[in-house]
């Protein structure tokens, strides 16, 4: 598999970020970090919008930047969607989308297909000022995809939009990207977007370091900051078993266990992701039956590490998958929890994403 290799010393005022990464050019890679960790700077450097002296950018077999060369933005063949102000105000929606296609020699049929997928057919003659924020971003995404980029870069494209739009649009975006097979680098500081979209994760932290890896592994890795957040979470993949129309519950197959999740009906066999916050997982020594909690699984304690003065985070192994639980230190001591112990995890709430 080809990769995007980066070695970038990014300096901006007092801020320094040292990126030395190899990012797989497949699927969606989220660039995640708090604000001020240099997510946008990293994306701009990859696109060639900013030049950092002494940096290396190697895309598959093309050297975009080294000590002697710097490929200009328009010759890199990247698509870029900014957080806002994407559209050319002097052009209609259709002209905006077509702006890059003549230069990239894409076919009309392919462009029409993208327009259809994003449901923009009825907006083509409008001016950008006549669009809603969500429509504007969809047009910007269509325009970036219409040049058939080798790599698509998105800088918090949905950050300025409301939650309802985001919930509707994210699955659409994910399907679109996987259909077109264009690798996507997606900058976000919203954990829910990242959990829903990403296969891989580039994690930037305040110390100026960057790490890259599989999102599922990184979320629960005690070495990384992700597992130490207040909203620490685990991501697990599951397949749909059946749908209980009476209780409106989906039954999922997860690591050999069956888990019930409320949600819309999905076809059996559909692959889904479940997101479980560490604070929604509690631990019991024996399986409880007289409880309102539906999802109770046998797990093994892999590691216990401190979170705050009062709480610990516990890394659990659920038939090969990893799950985080956060409990008070007092409970941990009362239950006498220790590594390799077999216990039960009670999962209070599960979020589902397709």
């Amino acid at each position, binding site marked *: 598999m080809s990769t995007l290799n980066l070695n970038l010393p990014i300096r901006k005022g007092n801020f320094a970020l040292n990126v030395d990464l190899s990012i797989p050019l497949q699927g969606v890679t989220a660039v995640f970090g708090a604000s001020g960790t240099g997510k946008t700077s990293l994306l701009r450097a990859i696109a060639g919008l900013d030049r950092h002296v002494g940096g290396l950018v190697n895309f598959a077999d093309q050297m975009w930047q080294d000590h002697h060369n710097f490929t200009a933005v328009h010759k890199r*063949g990247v698509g*870029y969607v900014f957080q806002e102000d994407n559209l050319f105000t002097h052009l209609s929606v259709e002209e905006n989308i077509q*702006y890059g296609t003549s230069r990239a020699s894409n076919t009309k049929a392919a462009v029409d297909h993208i327009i259809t997928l994003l449901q923009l057919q009825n907006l083509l003659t409008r001016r950008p000022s006549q669009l809603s924020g969500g429509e504007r971003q969809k047009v910007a995404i269509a325009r970036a995809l219409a040049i058939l980029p080798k790599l698509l870069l998105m800088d918090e494209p949905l950050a300025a939009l409301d939650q309802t739009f985001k919930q509707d649009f994210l699955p659409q975006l994910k399907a679109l990207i996987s259909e077109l097979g264009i690798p996507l680098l997606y900058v976000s500081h919203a954990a829910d977007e990242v959990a829903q979209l990403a296969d891989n994760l580039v994690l930037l932290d305040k110390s100026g370091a960057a790490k890259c890896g599989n999102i599922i592994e990184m979320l629960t890795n005690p070495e990384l900051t992700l597992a130490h957040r207040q909203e620490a979470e685990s991501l697990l993949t599951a397949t749909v078993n059946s749908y209980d129309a009476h209780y409106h519950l989906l039954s999922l197959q997860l690591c050999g266990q069956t888990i019930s999740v409320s949600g819309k009906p999905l076809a059996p066999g559909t692959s889904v992701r479940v997101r479980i916050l560490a604070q929604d997982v509690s631990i019991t020594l024996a399986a409880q039956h007289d409880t309102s909690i539906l999802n109770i699984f046998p797990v093994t304690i892999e590691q216990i590490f401190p979170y705050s003065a009062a709480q610990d985070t516990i890394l659990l192994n659920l038939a090969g998958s990893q799950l985080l639980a956060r409990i008070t230190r007092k409970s941990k001591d009362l239950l006498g929890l220790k590594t390799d112990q077999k216990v039960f995890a009670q999962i209070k709430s599960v979020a589902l994403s397709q």
Partner: protein
Amino acid sequence: MLTQADLTALLLTLQLALCTTAILLVLGTPLAWWLARTQWRFKFLLETLIAMPLVLPPTVLGFYLLLALGPRGFVGSFMQTLGGEPLAFTFTGLVIGSVIYSLPFVVQPLQDTFHNIGKRPLEVAATLRAGGLDRFLTIVLPLAKSGFITASMLGFAHTLGEFGVVLMLGGNIPGETQVLSIAIYGHVESLEYVQAHLLSAALLILSFFMLLTVYGLRGRMRVASM
């Protein structure tokens, strides 16, 4: 009615204003673009120089230009060594004077327009595979349309009303340097008020309709882009 001499003055004035505006657009566009983009910390020096004609009495500017372009001046003597004529008291000399005199009226609106367009549309265009010149032609020019109209009209109108620079540098040679404002002054001096009225009215009406066009167009464009 207008005499032949007055007509000649009117045509010469229009010719001067047209030449000056055309040259200013050619020179002023890259200059304004550079000023709007550069991070050079002594940019303000250049901006000050360009703004000088706004505050300097035209006679002062005309005086220095006369010295420079006359037979003893460095430009004038250089022209002579090339086998040409000194530029003072010629139409070419007037064009040079007007270009300097009207420079801020073209450069400043263009610089503001370019500045207001900002970097974003150009960055977007670059990611859509447009090269530098392509970006300028397809993004900057259309977005700066109203700025160009304003700059041209202001440059043109300001040259039209020029008096002091012409008086110092060009004198009053009919068909060569006698522009409208000088002709009006001449008529008043010789107490030919009817002629002065006619020419003044012509200039007044011309200026009014030009500005009307500018504001009309800008208003409509503002509505269209909404």
